[in-house]
Each structure stands twice: as structure tokens, then as C-alpha cells.
């Protein structure tokens, strides 16, 4: 019987870098996280392919191959930066209403339930307790306490049609995106890219861009300033600066 154990030791190590969010969590945290739409092509051979076609979309590349594409609203935080909600004593400052992604940890509903084993192994430097003292959380490819996993998966499924429509329009209006996808799909190491989060809102009648910009613009500006002097973070810096510029007109409205 294959079992995996896990207990969170509150080391705070997983509270760094990117956090893929549900759309609702992204919008609710526009005043806290610098947001991006992260596009990740997933090739047909991958175990996550079928699921990604359902949670994301399918795109025909320049070389006529099909890929599934995950489009994830993301707290686009540099991997070396702690989450802005992480407190000095390594605890979550918004425990009561932290994003669904954080609640489902260590599981990952962007992959099939039976495909969780390798992501339950802590990354280097993480202090998760996986010893015999920790409770079994995954047995025979089944999640023992599945409530958070199911809830996150449901949210991802419910938002999929809206993200699919967004992707379709974006691909029609920006031929360069297909080039990026083609390139990203060929890159075995880091196949993804970030697009302004506001590109999603702009293509929807119902979003209040002014309210969004008033929350998000200061966050992007703060992250642009924090990354300005670090050459390794130049891409992040450019992203924050340009995304902020896209929002400045809205942020200045009354």
C-alpha cells in the first residue's frame, strides 16, 4: 500500500514566489498581490494534458501541433520574495481568508488526483514533516481529506469557460502570442510566459477597471520599485512597470 505522510511545520518556505490563484482570489487580492496571467503550454504526452484541456484551452501551434494551455491568474511574485501576506514570524497574515491555493497545499488540483505523489515530496530547503509522526494524507493515489482539493478544482472548472473565451480573443488579436506559445512548448525547462492581468479584464464587459486599478496600481508600483536594483529581476521589474503603466489612466480616475 502506497502512502504519503505530511504535516505542515509552518516553515513558510512555500509562501514564496508565484501563487496560481482562482479568478476570484486574484480579484479579491488585487490590493495585495502583483497579478499576471501566466500561460503554460502542456504537451500531449504529459499526464496533465487532458485535465489542462478542460481547465484551460487547446491551441494549434505554428508547427501545426496541438497543445493544451493552462491560463493561470497568478500572484506574480519573484521566487526569491516572500508572499506580501507572510508576517515576520513566518505565519500567514491573512489566515482567515487566504487564497484557495494556500488552503489546498500540499495538493495541486491542476493535476489529476492520482498524479500527486511527486509533488508531495518537499522541495529542497522546505521543512515539511513527512516522517512516520505525520499523518497519512495520500494513500493509493487517493487524497484522504479532499475537501480543499475539490473546492479548488471546482473553482477552476467553473472559471474555465471564461478563461477559454479570453484566450480565444487574445490569440485572434495578438498573433505574437501563438509564437510565444510555440517557443514555450519547445522549451523543456521553463515553458510559460506572463501577460498583463488587465488584458483579461479589458475583454470583459462586467469588470470595473477603475476599482481594480486603484487597488492593483500601487501594488505593481511598489514591486517595480523593490525590483529596480536587482539585475536578475529585470524581467519582473519590466513586467511590473509596464503593467502599472497600462493601469495608470484608470488609477487616476475618480
Amino acid at each position, binding site marked *: 500500500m502506497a502512502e504519503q505522510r505530511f504535516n505542515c511545520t509552518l516553515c513558510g518556505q512555500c509562501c514564496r514566489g508565484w501563487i496560481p490563484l482562482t479568478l476570484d482570489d486574484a480579484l479579491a487580492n488585487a490590493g495585495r498581490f502583483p497579478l499576471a496571467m501566466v500561460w503554460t503550454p502542456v504537451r500531449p504526452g504529459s499526464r*496533465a494534458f487532458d485535465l489542462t484541456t478542460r481547465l484551460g484551452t487547446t491551441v494549434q501551434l505554428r508547427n501545426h501541433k496541438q497543445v493544451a494551455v493552462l491560463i493561470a491568474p497568478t500572484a506574480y511574485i519573484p521566487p526569491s520574495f516572500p508572499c506580501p501576506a507572510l508576517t515576520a514570524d513566518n505565519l500567514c497574515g491573512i489566515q482567515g481568508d487566504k487564497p484557495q491555493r494556500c488552503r489546498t497545499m500540499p495538493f495541486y488540483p491542476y493535476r489529476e488526483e492520482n498524479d500527486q505523489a511527486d*509533488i508531495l515530496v518537499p522541495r529542497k530547503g522546505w521543512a515539511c514533516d513527512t516522517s512516520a509522526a505525520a499523518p497519512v494524507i495520500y494513500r493509493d493515489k487517493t487524497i484522504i481529506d479532499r475537501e480543499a482539493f475539490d473546492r479548488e478544482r471546482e473553482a477552476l472548472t467553473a472559471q474555465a469557460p471564461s478563461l477559454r473565451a479570453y484566450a480565444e480573443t487574445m490569440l485572434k488579436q495578438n498573433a505574437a502570442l501563438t509564437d510565444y506559445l510555440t517557443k514555450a512548448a519547445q522549451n523543456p525547462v521553463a515553458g510559460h510566459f506572463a501577460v498583463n492581468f488587465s488584458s483579461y479584464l479589458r475583454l470583459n464587459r462586467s469588470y470595473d477597471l477603475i476599482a481594480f486599478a486603484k487597488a492593483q496600481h500601487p501594488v505593481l508600483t511598489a514591486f517595480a520599485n523593490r525590483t529596480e536594483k536587482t539585475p536578475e529581476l529585470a524581467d519582473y521589474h519590466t513586467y511590473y512597470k509596464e503593467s502599472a503603466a497600462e493601469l495608470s489612466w484608470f488609477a487616476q480616475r475618480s
Partner: protein
Amino acid sequence: MSTCVCGSGLAFALCCEPILNGKPAPTAEALMRSRYAAYALGKLDHVERTATPEALEGFNRQDSERVVDESKWLGLEILRTVDGGEGDQTGQVEFVFRYSLRGQTYAQHELSTFCRKDGAWLYSSSEINPKSPPVRVTKEGRNDPCACGSGKKHKKCCGA
């Protein structure tokens, strides 16, 4: 008498003005011209009034107000029309327009599709070529989170 901003060479009163005021456009091209004129003149009600419900779903009024406010409209050129005439139910118009935004000049090349509903032409959808201000795309380097089709806040990663 002023010539129309749509570049037809006709007087505004004989070109886009009546359409902006609610008169049905006789052709898809006439509607397209009037929609360009509406952006140039900040008459966004016309833009909303002449779109299909599906197109309207993807139309964010605040964003369009931003576009109107920030852009200077430099001219429209119709390249090609397919159907869209007085006897047609659908039509396409291919065009290029130029505008400047935050000190930069852009040309947008677009193929728009129109359809008739209850006799009136409506804008339905567009394919746009990438000469418009680019979507800000930031590529990731090799040291960033993951390529396993997922990536981020999860425990172990293929690359890590």
C-alpha cells in the same frame, strides 16, 4: 463644411454623422467607418449600440473610454471588403488605422466581421494583427518555477 474623420472625403453630414445619430448604416463598410468615427469623436454609445450581444460581452466601456482619451486618431484606410452590401446578410471589412498613444504612433490592421440583425448591420468580431501596442509579455528564465505543466506554489517541481 467639414470632411468626415473616417477619411471618405465626404462631408461629415453626408457620411458618418447621420449614422452616428442613429440612422441605419446601408453597408458593413459604412458601419465600420462610423464606428471608427465614433472612437475618434468619443461617441462610445454608438460603438455599443452597433455590436452584437456576443461582441458586447467583450466590450469594456471603461477601457474604451481610456482608449478614446489617450489616443490621437490619425486616419483610416479601407483595404478590402467582402460582401456586406445592401443585399447581404454578412460582410467583412479589412482596414488599417493609425493612432498615437503616449507619444508613440501605431498602425492597427484589422479584419472585422459584420452581420445583419433585423435589417441593421452589427459589428460581430475582429482579427487583429500584432501592430497594435503589444501585450506585455515577460518570458521566464530557466531558474523560474517549473515546466511540469503547472509550476508554482506546490511542493516539488520537476526542475527543482
